[in-house]
Structures are given as C-alpha cells and as structure tokens.
C-alpha cells in the first residue's frame, strides 16, 4: 500500500463512489458521485471497476503528494490544468506520482466536479456497500466528511499496469437538460410547464451537493405549494412556495413536501450537475420510453469503457501528454455516434 497526502484542498472534495443503497427507507440517501460518467472514465483509466471509490474534486484547486510509494492517478470530469514536475499532464490520461512528488490540479473550467481515480483504489470500510461521504449523516470512508488539508489516504501502489493509458474525453450533447414530467406535473398549468421549459435557469451561489437552486421568473402553482410528503428521486425538480425551482441531487433529502414538476433523466444527471454557479440550465421534457432508452445506452457506454482504454507508448510523460491532447480531438469526433 501507498499513502496519498492531501496538501491543499478546497471545499466539496470528498471520497465518492456509485452511492449507498439499502437504507433509503430509513431516510438515508444514496449520495455518490455527482457525475457518474466522470466517475466511470477516471476509474477505467486506472483499471478500477467503474463504480469504485475515488476522490470527487470540488471546483477549487487541490495539491496532493505521494507520501509513501509510487501512486498511479487519472483525472476525468470537469476540465482542469494539471501540473507535475513543472510540466502539463493531460486530463483523461493516467500518470504516476513518484514517492515524494506532488501534483497540482487547478480549478475546474466550465464544469464543477472532476474525478481523481487511483490504481489499486482507496483503503476503507464500506457502509451499505459504499465509501461515499454523506456529510450530514456522518458516513463515509476513510473520512466521514469532505477532505481537509493534511488528510492521508491509504491507497493502492502503482504496480499492476504496464505504462500509462488514455481514454478520449466523452462527447456530451450541449442541448437542454432532458427530463420526464412528474410526479406532480398536475399541480401546474400547461402554461407553467411550458414556462419551465422555455426559461434559461441560472444556478444560484447557494447550491451544493444536496441540490442546486435555480433562479429565474417564479413558477406559479395551480393548486397548492404543499403536498403530503413523498419520495424524491435523484434529479427531481421541486417547486417550493417561492416558485424558484430546486434541482435535488446526490446528497438530497429522501422525501419532501413540495410539488415536483419533473425529474432529470439518468443520462443527463452528470451534465446537469456539471453546470457551474452562474451557469444556465434549460429543460426539455421527453417521453419516459425515450429516457429509458438513453439510460440503457449510457449504461452500455460505461460498461464498454475498459475496452476503449488505449495504451500509451514509451517516451516522456510530457510529450505523451501533448500528443494525447492532439489525438483526443480526432478520436472524440470519431466516437460521437456511440455516445449521443
């Protein structure tokens, strides 16, 4: 085993995986990675299961050090500048941190969360099968809280893979965030549902892993703003009394008492979560069978990632990084049809 030292870290950076299943009925939410495609990409690069625990990086910079042993890492998700030994390292490409070396991963650009995966994984103890940090519930492993400067994580040693790998970045659609209407769309008039889809919603600064507050012209309730509390799915858009939508995400409460106009489709959840504060989201309602076809397509894409990982040749890391940066553009275009 090796030891990874968190030297500097911003807020909202925590160990996450696919999420915690089994206690929803007791009010314990699933949490898990905000962007599962980012989770899957980073893990595939270091040979981990796609749903394995890794470090979800909040929008601010992080500096980490291989305190003991050589550690192989990869970063996917929101774009960032990465520097190692004074050289740039490409996103979506594995790299090794020799004992005593530090890597600086700068602030996210045009997204929110990036995913730092580690070959051999993170050592910890799962609760209901998951390491995911749930801050309010006091759960998560190896720390039941977001990471702080000075934290040390026991991780796998870079020993299994021969050489480095890369995976061309996912090509994501940039259209509206698709959703399925309901379960309480009958609490709104057809005009309000049209307004919900026509409005460019701005992500408020008071957003976090529980949910994003959306700012725009308020939506009117046709009947009441209160319902008898019921269950809340990941990606639910709840309309409280103020008429300002709340997009409820990974660390949401499991039940709530405001009408829910729509729910973001599984395939677009990561894309919605990657919209930064001040960024704009538009919604488009689609039929549920279409949403489920897209969910299946995304699951197939994620399952096929290990086969798409490419081996990098010999040579220095920095020249490989440049080369990968150039090639990635072509490869991404070629793969577009498979991803949309």
């Amino acid at each position, binding site marked *: 085993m090796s030891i990874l030292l968190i030297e500097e870290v911003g807020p909202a950076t925590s160990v996450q995986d696919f999420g915690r*299943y*089994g*206690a*929803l*009925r*007791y*009010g*314990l939410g699933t949490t898990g990675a905000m962007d599962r495609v980012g989770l899957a990409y980073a893990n595939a690069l270091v040979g981990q299961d796609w749903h394995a625990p890794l470090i979800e990086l909040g929008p601010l910079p992080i500096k980490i050090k291989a305190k003991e042993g050589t550690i192989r890492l990869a970063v996917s998700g929101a774009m960032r500048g990465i520097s190692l030994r004074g050289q740039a390292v490409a996103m979506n490409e594995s790299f090794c941190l020799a004992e005593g070396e530090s890597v600086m991963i700068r602030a996210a650009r045009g997204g929110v969360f990036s995913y730092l995966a580690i070959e051999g994984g993170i050592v910890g103890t799962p*609760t209901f099968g998951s390491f995911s940090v749930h801050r*309010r*519930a*006091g*759960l998560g492993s190896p720390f*039941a809280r977001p990471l702080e400067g000075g934290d040390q994580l026991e991780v796998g040693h870079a020993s299994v893979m021969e050489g480095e790998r890369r995976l061309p970045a996912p090509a994501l659609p940039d259209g509206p965030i698709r*959703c*399925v209407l*309901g*379960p*309480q769309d009958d609490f709104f008039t057809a005009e309000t549902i049209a307004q919900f889809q026509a409005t460019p919603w701005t992500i408020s600064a008071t957003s976090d892993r529980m949910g994003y507050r959306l700012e725009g012209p308020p939506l009117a309730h046709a009947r009441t703003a209160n*319902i*008898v*509390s*019921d*269950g*809340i*799915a*990941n*990606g*639910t858009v709840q309309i409280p009394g103020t008429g300002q939508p709340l997009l409820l995400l990974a660390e949401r*409460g*499991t*039940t*709530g008492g405001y009408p*829910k106009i729509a*729910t*973001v*489709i*599984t395939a677009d959840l990561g894309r919605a979560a990657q919209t930064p504060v001040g960024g704009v989201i538009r919604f488009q309602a689609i039929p*549920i*069978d279409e*949403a*489920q076809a*897209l*969910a*299946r397509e995304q*699951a197939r894409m994620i399952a096929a990632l290990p086969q798409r990982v490419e081996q990098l040749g010999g040579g220095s890391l920095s020249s490989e990084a440049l080369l990968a940066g150039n090639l990635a553009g072509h490869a991404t275009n070629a793969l577009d049809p498979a991803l949309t």
Partner: protein
Amino acid sequence: MSSSAALRILPCGDAALTVEFGDTVDPHLNALVLGLDDALKAHDVAGLQETIPTYRSLFVTYDPVVTDFNSISGLLRELAQQAGPKPKSPRRWRVPVVYGEDFGIDLEEVAKGKGLTADEVVRRHCAGDYRVYMLGFMPGFAYLGGLDQTIATSRRDEPRLVTPAGAVMIGGVQAGIQCIEAPSGWHILGRTPMRSYHPTRAQMFLIEPGDALSFYAMPRSDWAMMEEAAEAGEWIAELVITDEVAA
C-alpha cells in the same frame, strides 16, 4: 379503498416511480402502502432496487437497464391489488423527552398561541398515541401522526437553518422526531437523547414505519448521562411488543 381506480402510478424520472394510494394523511392509506411494501419483499420483482414507504404512497427505485416503466408498473399494480393493508404493528416505542426551556425553545410560544400553559401542552403531547407513518428526509427522521389537534401549530414562516439532533417537534398537524442536526420549519417542544439513527451502533436504525410511539417527560438532570449512553450505542427508548394486536 384499494380499488384500481384510486391507485395511481406516476414516474419519478426514468429510474423511480411512486405508487400513490391517495393524497391525505390517513392510517388506512399508510397500511396499504406498507402492505405493498411487504409484498415486494416477498416477491422477486426484476430490476426493483429500493422502496420508501411514505404517508400515502410507495416510492420505488428500479434499474431501467433491467426493466421499464410499463412492465414494472403492471407488476406493482397487480401486487397492490392483492396485498391489502398491513395489520397494525405490535411494536411500540416509549421515548423520553426533556421539554421546554433551551431543550424546547418553542414550547412557550406554542402554549401562548393556544392559550394553554406549557405544562398543559406537554401533557397533551405526552398523551398522544402516535403512529410512525414514514421515515424520511434525513436518516432516522420519524414522521408521526396522532397529534392532539388542540396543540397543532402551523409551521414557522421562516425555517431555522439549524435545529438540533433529537429535536421533538410539531409542524401543522404532524409531529416528528429529528435524529441529526438539520434545517427545519417545525416548532421544537423538546429533545430526546434517543438516536433513531446511529452510524456506528450495531442496529443502525431503530424505528420502522408502522410502529406505534408515545412520549414521556424525563428530568433534564438526567440528560448528560442519557446522551452519553446513547452515544455509546444504547437505545434509550424502550421497545414494547404488545400481543393484543392480532390480524
């Protein structure tokens, strides 16, 4: 009441749905919800992941890779019609509460609003025979029905950003026990050292939906000792199994 006309199955995105038996707080509707929940435990429904029994609906998560909305809705509708209401639970919790002052910061105001003394509000709160309708929002939060309507008080206009762990609260016609610190617009009458959720206790969750529950006042001088015991993993609340209820 469990006729197919009353039953609605509504999508909650592409990986969850809600089976709605009605839209009111009603023990019979809740018994139907729990009846379907039990039926799902006994049947192997392809793609079914988890359920949340709520006041009047069963929230169901499922894997859209394995099944689809129409297939799973059909199965759930059939099972809902066969299942019927779950019989009354033989489990009853007796939960100690330190009422008033800094433990129940809203007790005086609730009493004043009703023209009652604080002691009378406590008496009526303790006299209630509560049903646990659901657990939700945050781990271990118990939503209770059965509040004496003479002390029912509508929610605060301005929710508090932080309310303490163990807060024993009322909000509108509902009562509740909060387990972990969270924001809330409910009125806090007291606090219990019981933790219905404790992440490192052998039994992580204590209370089940459908359980009966009652409160009794405990002296505040015992608080520190009881809280320490709860932290160490003791249940604190007493679980009574009554055999009076058969089918």
